[in-house]
C-alpha cells in the first residue's frame, strides 16, 4: 500500500506536524496550509446534504408547529394553537390507542415466534440453510406487494382466499379487514409475516455466537435441554432481544404502510395510526393541508420516541462495550 507518486501539495503532512507541536498555528493562511480546506472539501457533501435535508427541515418543523400555514396564504404565528388543536381532536386519542394496540399486537405476534423458531433452527443439523431461506423469503417480497397480496387474501365473504381455506375445516367466513375489531390484528398478522424472517435471521446470527464452552460447562453441571436454553441461550441473547424490542417499538410507532394500503384507516377509524393521522392533516384535505397541525403532532410523537432512542443508545453502548 505504498504510494510513490508525488502529491500535488508539498505540505499535506502538516496536520501531523501541527499535532506534534500541540497547538495549531493561527491565521487563515496557516489554516489553508494546514489542510483546513481539504477537511472542508471532504465535509462538504455531508454538510450540504444534512444541512438542506435534515437540519434545516428539523428546524423548520419546530417553526411550522407554531405557525398556521397551508402554502397558500402567508404563514402566521399562532403560538401553541396547533398543539391545542391536535390535542383536542377526538381522532388523536383513537390514533394513539390504535398505534399502541398495533405495537402491542406486533410484540405479541412478532416477538416470541421468531425467537422460538430461531432457537429450534439453531439445533437443525442438516440443511439449516433451507430453513433460513424459507423463513427469510417473505422479507424479500417488496413490502407494498406483500400488503396488496394479503389484501386480496383477506377478501371478506366466503370466496376470500383465507376464508376458502378455513372453510375446508369448517371455520369462518371471517371479516378480516372488514370489521373494526378484526382489522388491526389482520394488519399485524400481515406485517409479522413480512418482517418476522428478518428477526429470525438476526436471532440465529446471535445464537451462532453463543460460545460452545458455555453449553459444555452447563452439561458438566448436569443441565438438561430446557435448563441450557433458560440459563445459557436466553441470557446470551439478552442484548439482541433488547435491541429488537426497542427498535420494534420505535418502528411500530411510525407504522403507515399497512393501515394506508389495507384499510385507509377504516373501518370506522379502527386502524388510524398516529402517522396516518399526520399524513391526513398534511395531505388529505383537497383544498390545502394543515401543515402546522401535522408538524405539531409529529413533534409530539418525536418527543415520546426520543425517550426510547436514548434508552436504546445507552443500552447498546453499554452492551457493545461489555
Amino acid at each position, binding site marked *: 500500500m505504498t504510494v510513490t507518486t508525488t502529491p500535488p501539495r508539498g505540505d499535506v503532512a502538516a496536520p501531523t506536524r501541527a499535532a506534534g507541536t500541540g497547538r495549531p498555528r493561527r491565521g487563515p493562511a496557516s489554516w489553508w496550509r494546514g489542510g483546513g480546506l481539504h477537511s472542508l472539501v471532504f465535509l462538504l457533501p455531508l454538510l450540504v446534504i444534512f444541512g438542506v435535508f435534515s437540519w434545516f427541515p428539523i428546524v423548520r418543523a419546530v417553526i411550522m408547529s407554531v405557525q398556521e400555514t397551508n402554502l397558500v396564504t402567508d404563514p402566521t404565528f399562532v403560538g401553541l394553537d396547533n398543539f391545542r388543536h391536535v390535542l383536542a381532536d377526538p381522532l388523536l386519542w383513537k390514533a394513539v390507542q390504535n398505534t399502541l394496540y398495533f405495537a402491542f399486537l406486533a410484540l405479541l405476534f412478532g416477538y416470541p415466534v421468531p425467537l422460538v423458531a430461531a432457537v429450534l433452527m439453531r439445533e437443525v443439523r442438516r440443511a439449516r440453510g433451507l430453513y433460513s431461506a424459507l423463513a*427469510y423469503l417473505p422479507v424479500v417480497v417488496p413490502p407494498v406487494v406483500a400488503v396488496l397480496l394479503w389484501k386480496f387474501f383477506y377478501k371478506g365473504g366466503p370466496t376470500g382466499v383465507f376464508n376458502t381455506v378455513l372453510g375446508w375445516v369448517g371455520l369462518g367466513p371471517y371479516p378480516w379487514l372488514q370489521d373494526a375489531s378484526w382489522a388491526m390484528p389482520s394488519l399485524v398478522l400481515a406485517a409479522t409475516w413480512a418482517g418476522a424472517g428478518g428477526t429470525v435471521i438476526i436471532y440465529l446470527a446471535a445464537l451462532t455466537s453463543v460460545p460452545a464452552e458455555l453449553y459444555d460447562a452447563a452439561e458438566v453441571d448436569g443441565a438438561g435441554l430446557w435448563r441450557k436454553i433458560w440459563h445459557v441461550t436466553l441470557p446470551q441473547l439478552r442484548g439482541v432481544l433488547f435491541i429488537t424490542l426497542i427498535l420494534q417499538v420505535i418502528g411500530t410507532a411510525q407504522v403507515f404502510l399497512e393501515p394506508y394500503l389495507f384499510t385507509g384507516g377504516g373501518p370506522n377509524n379502527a386502524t388510524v395510526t398516529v402517522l396516518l393521522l399526520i399524513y391526513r392533516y398534511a395531505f388529505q384535505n383537497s383544498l390545502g393541508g394543515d401543515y402546522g397541525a401535522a408538524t405539531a403532532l409529529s413533534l409530539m410523537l418525536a418527543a415520546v420516541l426520543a425517550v426510547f432512542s436514548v434508552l436504546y443508545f445507552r443500552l447498546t453502548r453499554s452492551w457493545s462495550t461489555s
Partner: protein
Amino acid sequence: MTLSPTDRPRPAPTARRRPAADDGDRGALSAPDWRRPAVRWGMGGTHVLLLVLLVVVGLGPMLLLAKYAVTPTQDILRTPMALFPHGVAWENLERAWNDVQISRYFMNTVWLALGSWASQIVVATTGGYALSVLRPRYGRVVQALVLSTMFVPAVVLLVPLYLTILDPPLLGRSLVDSFWAVWLPAGASAFNVLLVQRFFDNLPREVFEAARVDGAGPYRLFWSVVLPMSKPILGVVSVFAVIAAWKDFLWPLLVLKDPAIQPLSVRLPAIEASTDLGVFLASLAIATVLPVAMFLVFQRLFLRGAGLGGAVKG
C-alpha cells in the same frame, strides 16, 4: 430511523461467526444428547413440523401468487382455491408486462435504489473520512449535529422535508417529479456516517502515516488507502441502502407524482382499482420474481447482511 449501537469495528462479528459454522458448531444440544432417542425423535419431529410450517407460511403465499398470475379473473373471484377449473390465463402475464408496463416501474425502482445508494456512499465515506481521519477542529460539532439527528424520527421530517423539496435552496425549481427528490435526502443518514466513521477510527493509523511519509495527500490517502481498506463496511452500508430504497413507500408516494418515474411501490397501489384482478396479481408476481431470484442466487450475502443487521441495526 436507524441507530448505531456499535462501537466495535464491523468485521469482527462476521469473522467470528464464520469459523463457528464449521466443526466448533453446536447449539444447546450436544452430540451425546442427539444420541438419546427421546431427543432424536422429539427434536427431529419438531424440525419436520417446523419445516412444514415454514414451507406453508414462507413459500405458500408466493406459490398462490404464482397460480393467480395465470388464473382467469372470474376463477380467482369465484373459486380462489380451485386448480384452474377453466384453464390457464397466460395472457395475464403478457398484459401485465405490456399494458401495465411492469418492466418500466421495475427499472425506476432500480434507479431509485442505485441513486440512493450512491448518495449515501458519497456522504458517508467523505464525511466519515473528514471526521475520522482529517479531524478538523469543528469536527466534533458536526459530529454532534449528525448524531443528534438520530434521535429525531423520520416522521418529523415528513412535512418540512416535503416543503424543502418543493422549493429547494439555490436551485430555484421544485425537485418534485425528479429522482433527485429521493436520492438527495437519502444521503442524510446519520447511521451510515457514524458506522463508516467508527470503522475508519479503527483502521491502523500507522498505514496513514506511512502513506503520508510517502507523500500521499488527503485525496490520494482517501482514494487509494482508506477506501480500499473499507470494503467490508461499504458492503454493509450498500446492503442497507439498497434494501431501504427498495422498501421505501411514503416518501416516493409524496414526491414522485409523475407515473413515468414512479417505482413499483407507488405505481402498484395506484393501478389497483383500475386493473383487472388477474392482470393485477400477475403484475404483483412479476414484481416479486426478480427480488426472489436475486435472493436465491445471493442467498448467503442476503442472510449475512440480515444477520449483521441485527448486530448493528435491526
